[in-house]
């Protein structure tokens, strides 16, 4: 009896406190909104937004709805995160491996990089790239070509525009190549397990990956037109490059800062993972006659990846959340477009902030659910 009361009372108190606090907040919110003449509801999402966004992946202008503005912001956030994740992984893996190099200079350069970029607030790094480094770039009319026909200017990075005909056929051919490679790999594995024969999977895969898209050009009617940027005068002093794909400087600054910053953490994860595989494993693998490449591929990597992947996913998540700092340099991401401009216009603080938070929350929860599933899959099955 006594035990039951002991368990019941604290729970009751917590529950009451939560209900009271929530009740208090809702009551106040009700009164405040009544006073200001706002009604709670998500109907405003269908209204015309009447503001413009400078950089958008989907077609958008002021006549579209707030809901579409939300998607513009979300896509921009995802774009930055996607590029940032790829870049930071590449840099992070290289630096992480470099920190374990026997070469004194390489090891210390990598350590310097990590200590340097990790200890400066991300916001300052973004500001540095955007306001200091990228502002020192030349104007379009003074820009010199990089790699032949791309131009890095103060107004952004101009790259040649690719104009595709029948793009879908090309994409299908790549998809077909990938599917057939997966099938061939599993077939080769089966053959190896049953008969001990090894098929040259790598060459077959590469061949397929080249051949099928090539076929799509020859037979499928796909063709590609590359339009190189040409300087064009708009006014007496205003120049731009056309026709070209232009990456705005906000995007470049954000991607640079995010990937250089996150790469330091990924490098540490990679280093910890490789160090976490005991030396005995390497020696045992070498002693049964595996070549150094096989040791790395079959013994070290599978074990190291088990340690590396969970914290690295966490860093990807952090990168995605940190991309919200975009609002500080006016890159139109979810926070700036939706929680900034749209909120200013409609004044619907509760609805908009809650949607924004829920969006980030669901991205986070989805990724952590995926990671838990993966962790369970790769966990060592002990008997």
């Amino acid at each position, binding site marked *: 009896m006594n035990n039951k009361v002991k368990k019941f009372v604290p729970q009751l108190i917590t529950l009451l406190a939560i209900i009271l606090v929530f009740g208090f907040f809702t009551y*106040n919110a009700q009164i405040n909104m009544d006073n200001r003449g706002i009604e709670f509801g998500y109907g405003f999402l269908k209204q015309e937004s009447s503001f413009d966004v400078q950089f958008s992946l989907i077609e958008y202008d002021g006549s579209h709805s707030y809901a579409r503005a939300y998607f513009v912001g979300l896509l921009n956030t995802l774009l930055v995160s996607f590029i940032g994740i790829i870049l930071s992984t590449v840099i992070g893996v290289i630096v992480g491996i470099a920190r374990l190099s026997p070469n004194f200079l390489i090891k210390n350069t990598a350590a310097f990089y990590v200590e*340097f970029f990790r200890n*400066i607030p991300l916001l300052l790094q973004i500001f540095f790239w955007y306001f200091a480094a990228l502002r020192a770039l030349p104007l379009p009319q003074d820009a010199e070509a990089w790699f032949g026909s791309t131009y890095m200017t103060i107004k952004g990075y101009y790259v040649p525009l690719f104009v595709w005909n029948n793009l879908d056929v090309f994409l299908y051919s790549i998809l077909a190549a990938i599917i057939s490679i997966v099938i061939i790999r599993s077939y080769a594995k089966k053959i190896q397990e049953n008969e001990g024969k090894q098929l040259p999977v790598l060459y077959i895969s590469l061949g397929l990956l080249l051949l099928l898209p090539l076929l799509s050009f020859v037979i499928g009617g796909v063709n590609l037109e590359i339009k190189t940027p040409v300087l064009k005068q708009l006014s007496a002093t205003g120049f731009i490059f056309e026709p070209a794909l232009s990456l705005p400087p906000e995007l470049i600054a954000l991607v640079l800062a995010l990937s250089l910053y996150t790469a330091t953490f990924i490098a540490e994860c990679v280093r910890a993972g490789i160090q976490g595989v005991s030396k005995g494993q390497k020696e045992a693998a070498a002693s049964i006659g595996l070549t150094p490449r096989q040791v790395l591929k079959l013994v070290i990597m599978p074990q190291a990846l088990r340690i590396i992947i969970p914290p690295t996913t966490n860093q990807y998540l952090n990168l995605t959340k940190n991309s919200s700092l975009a609002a500080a340099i006016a890159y139109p991401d979810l926070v700036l477009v939706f929680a900034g401009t749209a909120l200013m216009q409609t004044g619907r603080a509760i609805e908009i*902030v809650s949607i924004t938070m829920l969006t980030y929350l669901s991205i986070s929860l989805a990724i952590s659910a995926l990671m838990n599933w993966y962790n369970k899959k790769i966990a060592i099955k002990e008997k």
Partner: protein
Amino acid sequence: MNKLNFLKPDKNNLYVYVYTGSALLFISIFDVFLSSFFNINVTSYLPGPVSLLLPLIIGLFGLHLIRIEFSGLKYLDLLNKNINTSNFNGALTLLIIFAIIMATPPSLSWFIFDANIAGDTKEACTGSGACWTYIKVWLRRFMYGMYPNELQWRINVSFILLIALAFVGYFSGEKLKKFLTLYYVIIYPIIAYILIYYLISGGSFGLEWVETGAWGGLSLTFIVSFFCLIFCFPIGMLLALGRRSNLPTIKYFSVGFIEFWRGVPLITVLFMSSVMFPMFLPEDFFMDKLVRVIIAISLFEAAYVAEVIRGGLQALPRGQYDAAKSLGMGYWKMHIFVILPQALKLVIPGIANTFLALVKDTPLIFVVGLMEIAGMLGLAKTNPKWLGFAMEGYVFAAIIFWIICYAMSKYSYNLELKYKTER
């Protein structure tokens, strides 16, 4: 005499190889050095790419010649083992050395030789390097924000007092040792609050009142990080205990709370505290912006602290709980005297990382209009009298933050070594 084979250096003609190799290496580095420091290109008569790659090729060949295993020369072996194990490694070594040589003159001239610090107007900056005059003129703003110049001694005094009070633990006698935890967890924060409220904010005892909107610069960064550190730790500890509790209501509340704050970016939390939170308060109730921000950041970081502490709690063996229970300890007694001291010791690095993240997150408060150092930089940069010195400002702020964060991480590393106990 043995035949010389320059493609396969061996021990027989050791000195021939070593001298030739060193000479080649020296030539390659000297060439880069000349072109970088004195802008002299010795090989200018060669076509562009060849002239560019020549030092690398010469250097690589030099490194190849001195790569002789077990030569018996101590320093040569050391060199080979550390920077010259293979051609690939040698090439990377050379590239890094060249990069350092190439980067030295421009950065030195920007930071020191071509920089200006004299004078106090923009016109004093004539060199092509950095304009430290800008930092000198704006230093007070970067440190104290818009806080009135003649009142800044109040900030200094209260910071010095706070630091002095923090060191009480080192000088207290054995008898008072047991009260230290109480002092740091409860009394010290209260003193700090009183100090900041009466001394920095003012308004009573004849001190002029300064509104929080005028606070700023690095001192605001310190104030915010200080209070958030103090608040987020106990909240995080309670949440961690709550998540491990076997009472379902408390457990699920903690899980929901932690996962919510960990799932959203800090910037949206700050947005919430500034635009959404006032809607939830009674109309005549006013809460200062700074207080709201401190609450928001504390709750946000508490979720991270909770996860770190939970890791420590999970790492403790069950025997510790059982032993404490068998001594007849209750829940709180068990946790305060047995579980938490051990668990916290385990998670020092994690907690230090969270605190570091907190300090690095404080510049974000500019989104709600509080001008700490990044915000002040933005303000100074757009001042019409001082346009075009963004680089100096950000380099300055980066150096300050780097020193703070690096010191913190080194300190936590020492702490970790100090409290490491063998199990």
